[in-house]
């Protein structure tokens, strides 16, 4: 039994996931993805957002002080224009598998209507001066 516990602890130490956020990034308050856009030659996956609770915090969350925060998605029943974050489709700091997994989780959150918290870069904006999402936590 003792051996088993020791083995389990060792295994945990070996494979334990880091909880540290990426350097130069911060987690957003809860928001909900209400639109996904892929447009030719833009090089980004654009996420339209809705506040999940009646707070303005997610909308003004802008750690890198990017200039372009809104885009016109024309979503019926929601504020227009819609706030958005971009995921860069070719990111040299991230492996292909890691990038693909991030995108899969974004699709999962959208399809199931979950709230999410996005890891947003605090040192970088996109070339169109939008906020850059580099990670995702899928919430309740």
């Amino acid at each position, binding site marked *: 039994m003792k051996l088993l516990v020791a083995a389990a602890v060792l295994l945990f130490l070996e494979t334990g996931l880091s909880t540290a956020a990426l350097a130069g990034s911060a987690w957003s308050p809860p928001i909900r993805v209400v*639109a996904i*856009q*892929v447009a*030719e030659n*833009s*090089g980004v996956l654009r996420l339209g957002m809705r506040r999940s609770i009646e707070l303005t915090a997610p909308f003004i969350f802008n750690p890198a002080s990017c200039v372009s925060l809104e885009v016109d998605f024309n979503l019926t029943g929601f504020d227009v224009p819609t706030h958005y974050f971009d995921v860069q489709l070719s990111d040299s700091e991230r492996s292909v598998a890691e990038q693909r997994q991030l995108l899969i989780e974004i*699709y999962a959150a959208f*399809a199931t209507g979950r709230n999410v918290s996005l890891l947003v870069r605090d040192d970088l904006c996109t070339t169109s001066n939008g906020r850059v999402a580099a990670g995702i936590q899928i919430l309740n």
Partner: protein
Amino acid sequence: MRSSAIRIASLVVGFGFCSAVSAGSLLSPGVGRIASLFAISGYDILRIQYTTDSSTEFKNHNPAGCTVGPDVFDVQLDVADRSAEEQRQLLNAINLAFMTNRNIKFFVRDDLCSTAGTSSQLRIVTGVQVLN
């Protein structure tokens, strides 16, 4: 068997895109939904049929003035100026929209039509918005 082979051969002969020029695309003004997807081995397209209850603005969006046969759009799968990841995400987003029956808008080319396997000129999708 033989008639099937002839049909396939005819389709192959009919397959092809108009000559490519520099891309320009316009977002459809209305919203639609996807009724069905066609993917055929050997053809570099994904053909998307939209539902009959899609909005009129969506149905009529035809910036390139294609002749428009059936209620479909084509996505070109072999596009040199689109990155592999961008292409993959475009197809993922289309599949997601289809599986979850979401409203969509398409970015449609304004300078090119598709003639893949048909005598009609079909509209070409270069991007998608999947809405709530």
